């Protein structure tokens, strides 16, 4: 792809700012070397690795079920979908079909996780753009979701809530009622936040036409998730390669048209409504039965390799698993959504202002735990 470098003005005075790793709006320990002329961004170079823990190497000495807690710590705002991808990969390699109740449970938890993750996104994104109040509204709702998680698996953030072959526990009595109560009141809250932002003149000024990426460029850069759909590409792993029982529920994949920050905002807001729709259907159909398939005590997938991906809240989260037939993975590579989405950042902000940089970081919805692993 041709990279267009912005010509500096004749009287430009270049200045390089180290944006982060300790900066209020780099969402963790992202460091950006920003070349600016006044406030206009000439170039951005992301520097990552401050949170590197060698997760992929750690996988290689863990049993398959032992890998799951490590995945919690990748995208720590969406641990459930991380778990879902890993166990899905192992199950596909072993040819295990999980019981329907387990599949539905996974979907409910994953969609709740998507809501929670999008809530963190909305909260911090709005905060970055200067609207400080939605933050608290979002976190209040997120807390209710985390309460549901805690009731199910005992943990709020690092859930570790799936096993190869199904789910470790059945639901506690009354959980479905509480979950239903939550999702029934949730769409009204989304509308409330939209009233604060969607038609707000300042919000639109700050997001429309900011961080634009065309559909062709988005595909070229390998973007996935809302950044891809915001550009108008209808691509959702849940639809194109359905896993669990996503083919049995009805939901729409919202897309944008302009590929700017505002469209990505609208896409994510609509996705929250769609997630509620999915959860509602799952709760209606939740079958009875076991939550765990018959699997051997020691998980030993046959020799071979598999790529399995799920639609994580931030994009396509893929696991590439190579097994030598032992009880630990030979190699387990993660295709992180955030890492690949981040690559497009310099392209999206070149020529814009410093204030847009934080808006674009927010709209890409990155989590450094997943980027650095």
């Amino acid at each position, binding site marked *: 792809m041709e990279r267009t470098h912005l010509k500096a003005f004749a009287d430009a005075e270049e*200045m390089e*700012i180290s944006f982060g790793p300790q*900066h*209020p*709006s780099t969402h963790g320990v992202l460091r950006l070397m920003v070349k600016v002329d*006044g*406030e206009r961004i000439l170039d951005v170079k992301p520097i990552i690795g401050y949170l590197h823990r060698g997760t992929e190497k750690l996988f290689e000495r863990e049993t398959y079920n032992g890998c799951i807690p490590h995945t919690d710590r990748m995208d720590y705002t969406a641990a459930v979908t991380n778990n879902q991808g890993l166990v899905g990969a192992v199950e596909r390699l072993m040819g295990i079909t999980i019981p329907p109740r387990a599949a539905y449970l996974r979907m409910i938890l994953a969609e709740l996780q998507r809501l929670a993750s999008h809530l963190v996104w909305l909260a911090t994104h*709005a*905060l*970055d*753009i*200067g*609207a*400080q*109040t939605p*933050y*608290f*509204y979002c976190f*209040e709702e997120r807390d209710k979701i985390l309460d549901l998680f805690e009731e199910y698996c005992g943990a709020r953030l690092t859930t570790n809530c799936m096993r190869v072959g199904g789910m470790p526990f059945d639901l506690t009595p009354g959980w479905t009622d509480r979950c239903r109560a939550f999702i029934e009141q949730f769409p009204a809250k989304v509308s409330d936040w939209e009233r*604060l*932002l969607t038609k*707000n003149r*300042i*919000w639109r*000024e*700050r997001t429309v036409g900011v961080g634009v990426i065309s559909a062709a460029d988005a595909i070229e850069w390998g973007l996935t998730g809302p950044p891809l759909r915001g550009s108008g590409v209808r691509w959702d792993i849940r639809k194109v390669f359905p896993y669990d029982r996503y083919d049995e529920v009805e939901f729409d994949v919202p897309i944008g048209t302009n590929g700017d920050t505002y469209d990505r905002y609208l896409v994510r807001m609509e996705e929250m409504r769609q997630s509620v729709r999915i959860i509602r259907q799952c709760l209606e159909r939740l079958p009875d039965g076991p939550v765990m398939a018959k699997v051997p005590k020691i998980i030993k997938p046959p020799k071979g390799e598999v790529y399995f991906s799920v639609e994580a809240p931030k994009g396509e989260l893929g696991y590439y698993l190579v097994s030598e037939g032992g009880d630990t993975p030979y190699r387990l590579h993660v295709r992180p959504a955030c890492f690949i989405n981040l690559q497009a950042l310099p392209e999206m902000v070149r020529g814009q*202002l*410093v*204030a*847009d*940089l*934080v808006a674009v970081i927010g709209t890409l919805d990155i989590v450094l735990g997943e980027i650095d692993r």
Partner: protein
Amino acid sequence: MWAELAVTAAKLLVVATVLLTCVPIMVWVERRGAAFIQDRLGPNRVGPMGLLQPVIDAVKLFFKEDLTPGGVNPILYTLAPMVSMFVALVTFIVIPFSADAGVEVFGVPLKGIHVAPDLGVGVLYLLAISSLGVYGIVLAGWSSNNKYSLLGGLRSSAQLLSYELSLTMSVLGVVLVSGTLNLQEVIGRQGPEIWKWHAVTQPIGFIVFLVAAFAETNRLPFDLAEAETELVAGYHVEYSSMRFASFFMSEYINIVTISALTVTLFLGGWQVPWLTATLSGWPLLLVSAGAFAAKVALLLWLFVWVRWSLPRFRYDQLMQLGWKGLLPLAALNLLIVGMAMGQGWL
């Protein structure tokens, strides 16, 4: 003469004390107000309803280390918070906080709670001094030897250029109608009837002034100079301890001053419909001061309300708003006022 001096000094002391007391109260209102808007509790542990929280904060700031980073310009670095504070504190001397009720103290006419009642150029003085406030910010941004501060300072000067003109233009309409620059007389001309207040007769000018006032005080949606999520803390990123507190306090004093100015120019000052026309002497003094305080308090709440509801403008958008939006509107207001005066309506 000594009695006059003593009365003026006493007024100065009273007004300054009240103003400085407003700061912690305003901080408390802001934090509790934000909490109220955001469905949370806010500071409620120190003192009744958390009222002593700002005091504790101030004590904490006193005990913080006063750092001067390497590479700063030490003179300007020290001067900047002083400039901010000084400018914030001297603006209010021309604002009439109450009616000139004809009260005498020790045989000297009090002339209302108004430190410099005879200053004929009140409006000019206010505009001139309040634009100096940006010097504190620019100096702080430049002298800190920090790139974020520098950007904050730059933004601040760009911001000043774009709103100050509209601010002045919108005041011009009021001055035109009043025919005086003395703020006490500006209030007097508005009369006690609401429909004669300039906010009613010049709604466009009022709105332009209010928007520019938000920009003047560096508050959201125009807090570009500090913009925490973009420039970390902007111009005061290197400041700590009481130097930081000086900036913090001057911001709040500026809010109080600009609210007082808005009340004076557009909302009839200390006048209460019908009531203030019937009173005189001490009751008038007290009632008018109370009315003024109440109106200022309402505006202060508006400042808090807006801050916690709106996102932030980008600095080029603010300039656009200033030059392409507010300035033509202010000119339009001036035009309408002029024509209305020509027809004898105002």
